[in-house]
C-alpha cells in the first residue's frame, strides 16, 4: 500500500471554516467524555454500520531505504498484514459484548482514562456528508492500583453527518500509535 494517509494533502489544505472547526472539536471532546466515563454503549453507537476501526503495526526502518514517513518504505504494516486492530461493525459489537460481560478482567475493574484530542485538521470528505479529519491524541491510562500507560498518536477519521445527538458518526478511524513495541500489557481501551 503506497500510503495509509496522504499527509501532504492535509498539510496543504485550507483551514476549515471556524464554525465547522468548532463543531468537529466539540464532537471529539464529547466523544472523549464518553470513553473516559465508560459509557461503552453510547460510544459504540457512534460507530457507523460500515465502520473500519484500524490500527496498523509500526516498525523501525532506516531512512536510507527511502522516505519512511512519506510511505516510500512501509513503516506501517499494510492491510494484508498483521495489525493491532482491524475491525468491522460485527467484531466491534463483539468487543462491546466483552466489555459489558462480568468476566472482562482486562477492563473489570475499569481503567481510568483521559483522552485529550488536539491538532484537529479538517479536509473535504469524499461524500457530500462526510469530512476527513486528522487529529492528535494523548491518552493516559491508570489501572488497578499503580499501572500507568501512555498512548500517544494520530487519528485519521471519516466522520459522517448524523441526526444523532452528537451530530456525527464515525465511518472510519485509522489510529497510528506512536509505539513500535507496545509498552503496555494490552490495548483494552479505545481511541
Amino acid at each position, binding site marked *: 500500500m503506497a500510503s495509509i494517509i496522504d499527509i501532504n494533502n492535509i498539510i496543504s489544505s485550507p483551514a476549515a471554516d471556524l464554525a465547522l472547526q468548532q463543531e468537529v472539536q466539540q464532537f471529539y471532546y464529547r466523544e472523549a467524555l464518553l470513553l473516559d466515563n465508560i459509557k461503552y454503549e453510547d460510544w459504540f453507537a457512534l460507530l457507523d454500520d460500515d465502520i473500519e476501526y484500524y490500527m496498523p503495526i509500526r516498525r523501525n526502518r*532506516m531512512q536510507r531505504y527511502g522516505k519512511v514517513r512519506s510511505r516510500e518504505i512501509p513503516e506501517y504494516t499494510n492491510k494484508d498484514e*498483521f*495489525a*493491532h486492530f*482491524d475491525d468491522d461493525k460485527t467484531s466491534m459489537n*463483539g468487543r462491546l459484548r466483552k466489555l459489558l460481560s462480568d*468476566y472482562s*478482567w482486562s477492563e473489570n475493574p475499569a481503567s481510568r482514562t483521559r483522552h485529550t484530542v488536539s491538532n484537529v485538521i479538517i479536509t473535504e470528505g469524499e461524500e457530500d456528508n462526510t469530512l476527513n479529519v486528522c487529529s492528535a491524541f494523548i491518552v493516559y491510562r491508570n489501572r488497578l492500583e499503580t499501572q500507568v500507560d501512555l498512548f500517544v498518536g494520530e487519528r485519521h477519521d471519516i466522520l459522517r453527518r448524523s441526526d444523532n445527538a452528537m451530530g456525527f458518526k464515525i465511518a472510519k478511524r485509522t489510529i497510528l500509535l506512536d509505539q513500535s513495541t507496545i509498552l503496555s*500489557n494490552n*490495548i483494552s481501551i479505545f481511541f
Partner: protein
Amino acid sequence: MNTDATDNSTWANDDIKGLFNDENGTLDARIYNDEALYELELERVFSRSWILLGHEDHVPNTGDFLNTYIGEDPVLLVRQKDASLKVFLNQCRHRGMKLSRDDSGNAKAFVCTYHGWAHDISGELVDVPFEQQAHCDRLDKHEWSPLQARVDTYRGLIFANWDEEAPSLDEYLSNSKPYMDVMFNRTDAGTEVIGGMQKSIIPANWKLAAEQFCSDMYHAGTMSHLSGVEAGLPEGASLNDVEIPTKGHQFRAKWGGHGTGYFIDQPGLLQAIMGPIVTDYVTISPQAETASKRLGSNMFGQRMMAQHMTIFPSCSFLPGINTIRTWHPRGPDSIEIWTFIVVDADAPEHIKAEFRKQNIRTFSTGGVFEQDDGENWIEVQKVFRGNKARKTKLNVQMGLGDSTTEHPDFPGRVSGVYSEDAARGFYQHWLRMMTEPNWDTLKP
C-alpha cells in the same frame, strides 16, 4: 558452565533442585521473581536451548535479515547467497555497538554506525576504516567478527542455539514433532507468514506465559476467557449456549520440557475464537482431509481442536488459530512478546484473510482473548513481591499420576485435557537445565 553468572550466584544447585518437585507437583514461587535465578536462566537456559527466531518466509531472499533476540542478546538472522541461514550477535567487536537497527530489511553489508567496521552478510568483519594507518595490518578480522550461533529449521520455523554441545534441533524437539505437524505440516506447500511482527511488553515472568501455552487448557474454559468467548458469539446467543469442551488430552514430551493439549471432536472453543470459516477449514474442508492423509491420521489432521503448545523454553503456538510467538525474557518480571501469524501457503485467499482477521480480533495486543491473559500474568507477578507470597508453594498437581504411554491414537505420554503433566515436564526440564552443567547427563 564455569561462568560469571554461575560463579557469582547466590544459588547453589541443591537449593535450585528444591524449587520444584515433579513427583508431588509443588513449585516455589521464587522461580518467577528472583533476580539471581534470572541471571542463571540467561546463562543456563537461554544460552543452551533452541530459541525460535522466526520463519523462513521472514527472510526469503539473499541478504534479507530479521533483527531479533536470543534471550536478551540481540542477534541478526540473515539469508545467505547459498540459501542457508546465519545467526550472529548484533554487536560490533570493537566497542559493542549494534550492527543493524532496522527491524528487518535487505542488506549487502552490516556497517557499524560508531566507527564504521563493516561486515558481510555472513557476519564476517571485512573492512575497517584506516586499517593500514590505524591497525598496521595487525588486526585479525576473522577473530574479531561477531559471535555466531547455530541455526536450524523445522518445517519453516527457524531456531538458533549458542551452545556447540547442545543436541541437534531434531533431537531437541524429541517426540513432540507429530504434535507440531498439526500446524506446520498440513500441506506440501508448508506455511507462509502473514506479514508483520507484533511486539509488546508485559511486566511478568516469561515462564508464566510459556507454561500456560504448554499446559493450561484449564484457564480457557473456566474463567480467564469467558468474556473472550462472549465476544465471538453470534447475536442473541449467550454463554449458557456454549458447550465448553471436556474431551481431549495433554501431551508431555519424553524429553525437553515441551508440551501440548487439545480437545477432540468438540469445536466449541475453536469456533468462539476463530469463527465458523476457519473452524470448517481446519476440521471438515477438503484441505483438512488432505492434512489427515498427510499426517496419517484424521485425529491429527482434523479432530484435534483449540490446541495449545510450547517448545521449551520460549516458543509457543496455537494450531488451528495459528498465532506463534517467542517470549523474550526481559528481567525476572518482564516479557517482550513477539507474535506472528502463519497460514497454509496454499490456502485460498479468503481463508488466509480470515485467519488474519480472527487473530487480530482474538490473539493480539488488542485481542479479546489475549487482553485477559495479560491481566492475569501481571497481577500474579505483582503478588510475588510479597515476602510470604514469593515463597509460597504453588500447586501444580492436576492429573498427577494419571498419564499413560499406551494411548492408541496419541504417541508419547498423554493425560486428560485438563492436566498439568506438561507443566511438570516444563519445570522439570527447567530444573535440569539450571542444575546440570553438561550434556553428558542432560542429553535426550
